[in-house]
């Protein structure tokens, strides 16, 4: 199984947890770190976080399942968050989403057969002046058109190919 988090980072979280009065405050940080390294947070990631911070697994799980940017199921190498909130909706988000679904051949909440893209609807990305918008990783792409989306997907595919 792919490593959940490098040992150096686990040790760092352990040291931080030991030094503070409320180690629970590191739960989101460690879940985010696992996701950044592993791509998503499997059950073992929840257990690892609990063990590292000295808290109960259920306390980690109830946090992990609350947030929509913590993935408790396997996702593709690139998660596309496409905004459907009012500013994006009023400037063509439905058309943008349809184009993404058609181009990728998947519905919302699904992952492409090659495991590269997962498409998720999302609430406002804070890019309302650049609507319609989507986010891949931590990068926000605004003023989307179908041509712009095609170019972005092509770049991301190439980047994933270069990572292998």
């Amino acid at each position, binding site marked *: 199984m792919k490593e959940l988090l490098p040992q150096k980072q686990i040790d760092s979280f352990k040291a931080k947890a030991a030094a503070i*009065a*409320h*180690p*629970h*405050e*590191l*739960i*989101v*940080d460690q*879940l*985010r770190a696992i996701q950044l390294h592993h791509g998503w947070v499997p059950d073992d990631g929840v257990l690892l976080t609990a063990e590292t911070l000295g*808290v109960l697994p259920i*306390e980690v799980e*109830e*946090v992990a399942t*609350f*947030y*929509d*940017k*913590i993935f408790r199921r396997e996702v593709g190498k690139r998660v596309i968050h496409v905004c*459907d*909130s*009012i*500013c994006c*909706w*009023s*400037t063509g988000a439905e058309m943008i989403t349809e184009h993404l679904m058609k181009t990728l051949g998947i519905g919302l909440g699904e992952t492409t057969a090659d495991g590269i893209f997962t498409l998720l609807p*999302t*609430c*406002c*990305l*804070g*890019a*309302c*002046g*650049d*609507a319609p918008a989507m*986010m891949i990783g*931590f990068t*926000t792409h605004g003023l989307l058109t179908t041509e712009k989306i095609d170019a972005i997907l092509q770049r991301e595919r190439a980047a994933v190919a270069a990572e292998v």
Partner: protein
Amino acid sequence: MNAYTQVLFKNRRPNETILLPEYEKNGGYQGLRAAMKMSPAEVCELVKGSGLRGRGGAGFPTGIKWSFFPADQPGDKYLVCNGDEMEPGTYKDRQLLLADPHQLVEGMAIAAYALQTQIGYIFLRYAYEDCFQRLERAIEEAVEAGYLGGNILGSGFDVELHVHGSAGRYILGEETSQLNGLEGRRPNPRSKPPFPAQRGLFGLPTNVNNVETLATVPHILTHGTAWFQDLALNPESAGTKLFGLSGHLNRTECFELPLGITLREVVEDFGGGVRGGKKFKACLPGGASTPYLNTDHLDVMMDFNPLEEVESRLGTAGVTVFDEDTCMVAVTRNLNQFFARESCGWCTPCRDGLSTISWLLDRIEFGQATNDDLAMLKDQVKNIKGRSFCALAEGAMGPVEALLRLYEDEIKDHIRKGCCPFN
């Protein structure tokens, strides 16, 4: 183009972030130096006297909020900056942090001194990784220069700041949910009282303010209360405000404008008018939870009290404009779907009520509704309003109530025709 005094955006340049030397050169950290020559109570009084009202949406007077805080109580206390900013239509804090993050750092150092808190957290939403990095750099610069850390500016006062990256969910903008989120607990809202000023983060007194509010504080310390009050066009108000424009406008940018400017000026002069040469129909004046304004309101002052007088709110001043071809049932349906999806599920009026409203708006929009559905929609609004655990459902009712008040004819049109008349 913007002839109004720029305060928060005075250093802003496209795609650049101001670093410490330039911030200092342009008067940065003079507010902190001025604060350190005053007693903490004097700083609180100055902020109270300035008339600054919270810029996060609620508009509560900042100085009064600070005066509730037990600054003289011994022991740990916390300062929290709310940078969750997940209300659709609102992107002003991101613009501020990307352009000039030291304003927030300086504002937090001043607030920490005034409130005698030695630990501050900046709570940022997941999507704002770009702001996260800039803030971390600004904090490092400030520590090195002696504006943060131990014995700041030789005053004997210590303050440290931490940035917390969240993981997505609108409810985290509610201050007590945010405190649970910072503690690493499931972020449902907490019951009030006790209020955070008495029992907040880790059970200790905590003051929570918005990014824009805290970033405004240094300027008040530097230039004084009279200067701050004169910035507003409305003589009953004070200061400038960041307006984030979006929707069907020719220019959808973030502008710093004086409070009291009219909606017409915002839409026509700054937004460049409605795109495609179409007519203005309606807008959300301050984010997704604020009741609509229509053509009757174009000359209203964009400010806290004038907007309440026309049954709306300034909120975050995220102005989303809709053109004459827009179906307001469809707009309200989209807004309500957002709130229903983002409900934390803690209380029944919010969890079940917003879903029921979504179902009713679907029926109306898709031509399946009867007059009984309209009656039920009105009934549901009454049942939800004032009965939810926190303000999320209350805010969600803003646009729905405004739809019923301003656009009931459109609802009836959908029912009569059995379809959306705008399609």
